[in-house]
């Protein structure tokens, strides 16, 4: 079980979020979470992507909130324990980015 479930402080956010923002993650309003929409060529790729993310989520014991319709995947990341963003979200987001690159 990965630790680091504490809510990110302002400095940490300044340090970590810019990188994610740069690739398209946005902070949601009214909620301390980050969100991004992914598009894939077709359902297979999308689901392949989701499978990879799912396997990693299980490994990290940190799961995303997501929605999928055919080739689109919308992902929202937030940590329930601290009711906001934590390092786990950042880690998972980084992993998601990595996978997304491979899948186009």
């Amino acid at each position: 079980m990965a630790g680091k479930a504490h809510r990110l402080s302002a400095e940490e956010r300044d340090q970590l979020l810019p990188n994610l923002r740069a690739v398209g993650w946005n902070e949601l309003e009214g909620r301390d979470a980050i969100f991004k929409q992914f598009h894939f060529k077709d359902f297979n790729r999308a689901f392949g992507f989701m499978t990879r993310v799912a396997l990693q989520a299980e490994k990290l014991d940190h799961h995303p909130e997501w929605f999928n319709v055919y080739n689109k995947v919308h992902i929202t990341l937030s940590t329930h324990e601290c009711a906001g963003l934590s390092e786990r979200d950042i880690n998972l987001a980084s992993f998601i980015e990595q996978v997304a690159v491979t899948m186009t």
Partner: protein
Amino acid sequence: MVSKLSQLQAELLAALLESGLSKEALIQALGEPGPYLLAGDGPLDKGESCGGSRGELAELPNGLGETRGSEDETDDDGEDFTPPILKELENLSPEEAAHQKAVVETLLQEDPWRVAKMVKSYLQQHNIPQREVVDTTGLNQSHLSQHLNKGTPMKTQKRAALYTWYVRKQREVAQQFTHAGQGGLIEEPTGDELPTKKGRRNRFKWGPASQQILFQAYERQKNPSKEERETLVEECNRAECIQRGVSPSQAQGLGSNLVTEVRVYNWFANRRKEEAFRHKLAMDTYSGPPPGPGPGPALPAHSSPGLPPPALSPSKVHGVRYGQPAASEAAEVPSSSGAPLVTVSTPLHQVSPTGLEPSHSLLSTEAKLVSATGGPLPPVSTLTALHSLEQTSPGLNQQPQNLIMASLPGVMAIGPGEPASLGPTFTNTGLASTQAQSVPVINSMGSSLTTLQPVQFSQPLHPSYQQPLMPPVQSHVAQSPFMATMAQLQSPHALYSHKPDVAQYTHTGLLQQTMLITDTTNLSALASLTPTKQVFTSDTEASSESGLHGPASPATTIHIPSQDPAGIQHLQPAHRLSTSPTVSSSSLVLYQSSDSTNGHSHLLPSNHSVIETFISTQMASSSQ
């Protein structure tokens, strides 16, 4: 009887395998003792799937099979595509291979330039040397570089090899990171192309994120202790992981680019050596070449570097080169040309950390140098300072030194943010305000910098009227422009700028330059700027000016030929500057001694950006 795996099945299988599941584990989980390699002889399910995969392998829809064959040849140089069983295991089975093929095919259909950009950014992100790609794909390095950087066309087959490498590399890296904690398991880590070929890892390379951190730390302290180095190691590895989009806890996945204390130690040692070297160059430049006639570049005329600047106000301006008493200068400098050079190196210690690190350190170094030697360094001139000198009305009292030198912030970079800061400061009266008008000078190399706008100048200029003499350039003034410049130069944040070196040059150059431009004539008049250029010294009469000269006869002053268009004097830029590719040469700071009519604008002659960085050594010709 080959049953083809549906694409989704292939995807899912690939996902499973990529998640770290080894083929054997998968097979075992399926209850199949027979290894996959048995070519489908096993039980139906397994056999079929295995056979299917194999079959699929052979009959990949777009004829990838053939491509595969050819690719194999290409790839065999580096990565064995169909290596013996051992490799195959790591290679994640044919499903994965099939998946990879599919991905490659997709990439091939896309716009080559777009894909090239993707690949290039991936290389930058992970700091992978091109050599590795070349070794494994057999492509020509020049061709590869041109294709990635400029979009030079590349044949499909070769692109396929490239994309195959790309896809495989991504998997490798992903696995490397995933298994970071478990120790490198992949035979072919990012560093090695072929485990068998040579057991050598790729050469370590600093990433832009790490460099930023290091430069900031260097600013704070040039000689960190072991604990500090270790802290930096952690920070850098963390930044590198973030740059690559992985969790910092997987730092081991960085492979050959993992930052260690030794590397940090070496980095600091190299920076210190660099600084010393630059210092040495500065010294050489100053004492070396004899003052040229007229505008001549570098006027080392200022007396021997060893002489400490007279009455240099201790404040920031260290490097003021007063040029010792006019005599020396006069002798050396032809009357027509701006005689004495006032160079002031600004301490710039305050340079804001972000992105200025290199420059910052340079500046401080220069500053120190100057003070030590009495100003041999030709830091950015404080044109503004000089200018202001003239401008200031006679009544102003100011310490002499301040006037001249004070304003020299050393590096006056006109950064985008500068004007604002400069402006207000100027208005302050008294030297204390400091903000020396930042000398616009430095323009940096970076494209971004080019903005030396006259604006920057003007701001400072205005106040000059009010102020007696240019107040010593506050470090912040100098630094901001400089920093801005540097920041722009650096600009890597989040981007992998592959030209950090440019920045390096830049700041080097900046320091070297010295600029001075002042309208000395005004000294006497202060208020009115007369176009004529006069040796400063002569004019020192003015009360205010006297301050300047203060102790010794007037120090150097830079005159700006009053011509309107641009009295620009360029102080000889040290030739030691490395040229920055983009920067224009011979920077000059143009000051115009404009009449009051010009008003504030006088300083800034028209809009040509007078300010140019000195980066180049050539000297700008001064308009006389």
